[in-house]
């Protein structure tokens, strides 16, 4: 009998990578299973569980790629990239790049879509913003104010238009055409005072202003420095920021 350390190492190797013959020789299968078949129960269960986790996180990518392509990719990824976290939900941070390498030719948007889904998942588990109310904010804020944003906000620039693909009706199986994804966009993901995650596509000047504000730039300067941001757009942006629960403090 090998040491417990060696035994565990061989078991994990057999479940994740190549079946270890030395491990198989020191076990007996349960039921009518041979030793190799018993190892197979654990070996098959591993990619199945990780695929299920990937399927939950990258649901829209699954819809776009179809069952066969997506699940094959999940299995291959599970065999290549080990899970190192106790939390299955953490698995898949490099899956967007993996999907791009596998499907980038026929679905150039797939990496951007996967990144959007990953960031949505991250934000889902983020705490809500302890937001100032719109009325409190309007009283407190001045042109030279610095706004403090909560943790539940992400700005995601992408080379392809994926927000509408992400939000697409699950039953809509109309084939995609190039015009459906061509053109970049910037998606804002955020939480307000509650736990739901909201999203909206915003224009580049608005994104620039928000980015500056998040870096701690004074309100007036951030809005003035955003190229292409008209006065009306600036008012609308401030109105949105005030009412959406993004801001947790003013200094």
């Amino acid at each position, binding site marked *: *009998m090998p*040491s*417990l*350390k060696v*035994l*565990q*190492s061989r*078991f*994990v190797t057999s*479940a*994740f990578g190549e079946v270890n013959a030395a491990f198989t020789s*020191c*076990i*007996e*299968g*349960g*039921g*009518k*299973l041979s*030793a190799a*078949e*018993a*190892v197979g*129960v*654990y070996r098959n*269960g*591993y990619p199945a*569980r*990780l695929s299920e986790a990937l399927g939950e996180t990258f649901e829209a990518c699954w819809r776009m790629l179809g069952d066969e392509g997506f699940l094959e990719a999940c299995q291959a990824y599970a065999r290549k990239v*080990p*899970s*190192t*976290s*106790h*939390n*299955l*939900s*953490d698995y898949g941070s490099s899956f967007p790049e993996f999907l791009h390498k596998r499907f980038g030719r026929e679905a150039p948007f797939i990496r951007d879509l996967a990144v959007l889904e990953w960031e949505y998942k991250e*934000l*889902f*588990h*983020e*705490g*809500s913003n302890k937001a100032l109310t719109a009325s409190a904010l309007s009283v407190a804020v001045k042109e030279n104010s610095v706004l403090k944003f909560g943790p539940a906000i992400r700005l995601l620039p992408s080379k392809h238009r994926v927000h509408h693909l992400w939000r697409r009706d699950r039953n809509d199986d109309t084939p995609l055409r190039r015009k459906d994804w061509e053109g970049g966009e910037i998606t804002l993901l955020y*939480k307000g005072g509650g*736990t*739901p995650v909201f999203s909206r596509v915003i224009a580049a000047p608005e994104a620039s202003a928000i980015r500056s504000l998040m870096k701690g730039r004074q309100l007036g300067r951030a809005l003035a420095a955003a190229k292409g941001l008209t006065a009306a757009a600036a008012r609308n942006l401030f109105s949105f920021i005030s009412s959406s629960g993004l801001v947790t403090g003013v200094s």
Partner: protein
Amino acid sequence: MRKKENSKPAEVGVGLRPVHFPRLLERPRTPVRWFEAISENYMDSRGRPLEVLTKIRADFPVALHGVSLSIGGVEGPRPGYLKSLKALIDRVQPFLVTDHLCFTGAHKKNIHDLLPLPYTKEAVRTVVSNVSKVQDVLGRTIGLENVSSYLTYKDSEMREEQFLVEIARKSGCKILLDVNNVYVSATNHGFKAEEYLDAIPNELIAQLHLGGYSDMGTFLFDTHSRAPTDPVWELYRRMIRRIPNVPVLIEWDEAVPDWAGLENEAKKAIRIAREDYAVA
């Protein structure tokens, strides 16, 4: 009818699953008395799952049940994991904290499965040492659950139930006795489930689990995808006669039924507990 002195019938709980969140937030009347939450699903989340758990906790006792502690792992408990678990415990104040008597990975790879240990003295020493570290960090006694298994080690030095009891006695931890898992492993490995259950002293048992398995033709698979089967209910009846006031949990993880369907299984567990309580 006569009631056992100093006892009360078992309180039955169910596993807290996201599919039931909307119904539970309506605060329905229910005979379910407590909930078990999977620790890892809440340890790293500050979003909706934790919000719902906090609301449930305001109305019900909660037990925390982990799947990745890897108490049998030779690499020992991971400080980061314990820190997150401790923070969740401080927040939820569970009446019981449990995990599985198994290991879940090696070399920093997490297989996310309950890998069985060999029943050896070396494995006992490893688990006892790990339990001691975990209980020190958490500042409380934990419970360990027997797992279903599909293989055994040729060089095991004792029976599974002896392994379980020895660890509990030496470490001071409690046993979460999964009746379904005992039945699955007994069928897979050809031992008598009744003898296994009878070998576990009452005072070591902190909780019972009931779940459903799948018959794969060549072995029984612990899928938690259906209601407990008749043989498992019979084993439960055997246990509840011995320890009528132990908390009991209905576990269901795959193909989870609606709330009413899950509640029906809980009602069955309650009915059996009360019948035996009344005639004892």
